[in-house]
């Protein structure tokens, strides 16, 4: 009997193993790769091993010592890999501009003359401690919080303290706030439309309920791209909405509906509305139908009965739906990317830009980590709520 149990466990394990391994390799590992790209900074230590050992003892403000210059020149001579050199230049230039011209010039000079170890003679800028500080930070550690700080527009000063980035040099915080504002607006719009709609669907039955729910489910099953394309066509300056309004004589010139905030919120509300209606509806159909008439028979006017009876009882559905909509809205990419203008781009678009446009994996990873953590926190809260609900039943 015991052997049988053991065998059944082994069989189960063998059946689940491919799935678990697949998800570990192709779901967990990519996320880990992204996080490590955000916090790792291996270029400096790898490209400049000698400098790294010597510059550690430098105080950061005094003029660069001859040993530092010699070590740096040796390291530069040793770099044969142009890819590594390019990465190093990019890394140093991101901390202080000027390295892009300084580094190739210095490298050529030290390679041409094996005895040329006086960097100041090659370029005046090497006498400036401001050019040695980035070298020190880049070689000090293979882990950095630079990208994570930059994700919220912070940086470390030369002394190592965290400080605000100069005004106008980075827009990440503005993007995060915009993402939050757009997601909140979409959640509110979904709530204002979805709550009454779910109440109506719960208050009728038969074909009327089927019809109301079908209208929610059909868009949910339709391709997201088709829905976005449909809104793109409708919202254009000469699209159906503007041409109908003009034909009715309500407006003279087309309303600006596309490539702006209004269009993004309309289209995202349409896409995410089912996620609000369905959880509220499922809570509402669990509420006994005679409660509202009971409240009315006790003399409560409809509005008061709604406020004191129905609304408190549907709170859980409202919270679940709102969390679901808000969470999905935070990470939305396709709809804002196609319907929004340059000033409506959310965090996902910025991540995609850093990853595919700028090849800045560190920043893409850091912003991705911010989005991932926010989403997972919201998902945990959502699970808590739906778990409590199941326990109650």
């Amino acid at each position, binding site marked *: 009997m015991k052997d049988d149990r053991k065998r*059944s466990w082994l*069989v*189960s*394990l*063998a059946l*689940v*193993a*491919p*799935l*678990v391994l*697949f998800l570990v390799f*192709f*779901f967990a*590992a*990519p*996320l880990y790769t992204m996080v490590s790209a955000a916090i790792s900074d291996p270029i400096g230590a790898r490209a400049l091993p000698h400098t790294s050992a010597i510059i550690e003892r430098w105080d950061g403000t005094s003029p660069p010592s001859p040993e530092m210059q010699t070590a740096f020149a040796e390291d530069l001579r040793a770099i044969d890999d142009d890819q590594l050199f390019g990465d190093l230049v990019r890394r140093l230039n991101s901390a202080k501009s000027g390295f892009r011209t300084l580094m190739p010039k210095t490298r050529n000079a030290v390679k041409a003359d094996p005895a040329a170890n006086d960097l100041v003679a090659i370029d005046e800028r090497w006498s400036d401690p401001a050019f040695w500080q980035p070298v020190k930070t880049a070689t000090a550690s293979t882990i950095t919080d630079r990208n994570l700080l930059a994700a919220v527009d912070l940086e470390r000063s030369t002394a190592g303290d965290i400080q605000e980035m100069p005004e106008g040099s980075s827009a990440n915080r503005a993007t995060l706030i915009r993402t939050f504002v757009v997601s909140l607006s979409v959640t509110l719009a979904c709530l204002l439309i979805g709550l*009454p*709609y779910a109440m*109506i669907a719960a*208050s009728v039955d038969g074909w009327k309920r089927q019809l*109301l729910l079908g*209208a929610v489910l*059909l868009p949910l*099953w*339709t*391709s997201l*791209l*088709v*829905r*976005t*394309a*449909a809104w*793109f*066509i*409708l919202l*254009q300056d000469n*699209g*159906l909405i503007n*041409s109908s309004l003009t034909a009715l004589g309500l407006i003279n010139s087309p309303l600006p509906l596309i490539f702006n905030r209004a269009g993004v919120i309309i289209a995202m509300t*349409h896409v995410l509305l089912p996620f609000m209606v369905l959880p509220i509806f499922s809570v509402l159909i669990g509420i006994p139908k005679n409660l509202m008439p009971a409240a009315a028979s006790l003399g409560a006017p*409809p509005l008061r009965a709604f406020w004191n009876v129905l609304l408190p009882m549907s709170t859980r559905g409202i919270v679940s739906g709102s969390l679901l909509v808000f*969470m999905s809205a*935070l*990470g939305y*990419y*396709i709809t804002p*990317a*196609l319907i929004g203008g340059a000033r409506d781009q959310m965090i*996902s678009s910025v*991540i*995609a830009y850093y990853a595919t446009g700028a090849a800045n994996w560190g920043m*893409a*990873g850091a912003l*991705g980590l911010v989005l*991932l953590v926010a*989403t*997972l926190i919201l*998902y945990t809260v959502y*699970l808590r709520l739906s*778990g409590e609900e199941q326990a109650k039943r």
Partner: protein
Amino acid sequence: MNGLNVAKVVFGAAIMFFLLAPLIAILPLSFTDSVFLNYPIPAYSTRWFNELVTADVWRRSIVNSLIIGSGTTALATVLGTLGALGLRNHASFWSLSFIRTAFLLPMVVPAVVLGVGMQLMFARYNLTNSYLGVIIAHTVLAVPFVVINVLSVLQAIDPRLEQAAASLGAHPVTVLARVTLPLALPGIISGAVFAFATSLDEVVLTLFVAGPNQRTLARQMFSSIRENISPAIAAAAFVFIVGTIFVALILILSRKSLARR
């Protein structure tokens, strides 16, 4: 009819209009003769459907979608069905809610975040710009649907049926092939359909992982809306919407056949 009821009908109808009108409005535009996506439609023709099957970019993207969709369906269905079979006997041990949580994570994590990680990692193993890479990426998103669908059907199977087969001397493999799998078929089919639909509609991971040779129909629609919108989009949308209704019918029929047993 009192005022409240009138308000309910008006509000309900207005929101139904908001939900359905965009999908309906795009359909007639796929039959336009003009190069503009506007009403009124000057004349009707099927030129944009022709464009869809003859223009190189569209035709190749449809073929790619079919290749990648079939690959994803096969991989996700095999992995998901095996996994569901393994989880089923120990569902109480793992607790269903834990399974749901763990396997739903790929659907919760924002696609852009997963895309960045996949692009970075796939580049190391030469999986970017390959069909296999795209199929793997889509399978990560599709496999939860298969697990959930198959698991729910498996749990509805009466264990005495399998015990009876075993007690009559059937080898465990025979029980699986002749009893369990046929009974689970509706769940496997709907899981497979969801997997195919997920792959067909996926854009974000495709943007990160696929090369120009693996452009899928959804990816092509995305760049077409972005760069040069034409009524071919409406024709593609028409195909998608008709496909959705077709798939919904398959699912409803497979559920009905399950309910009949």
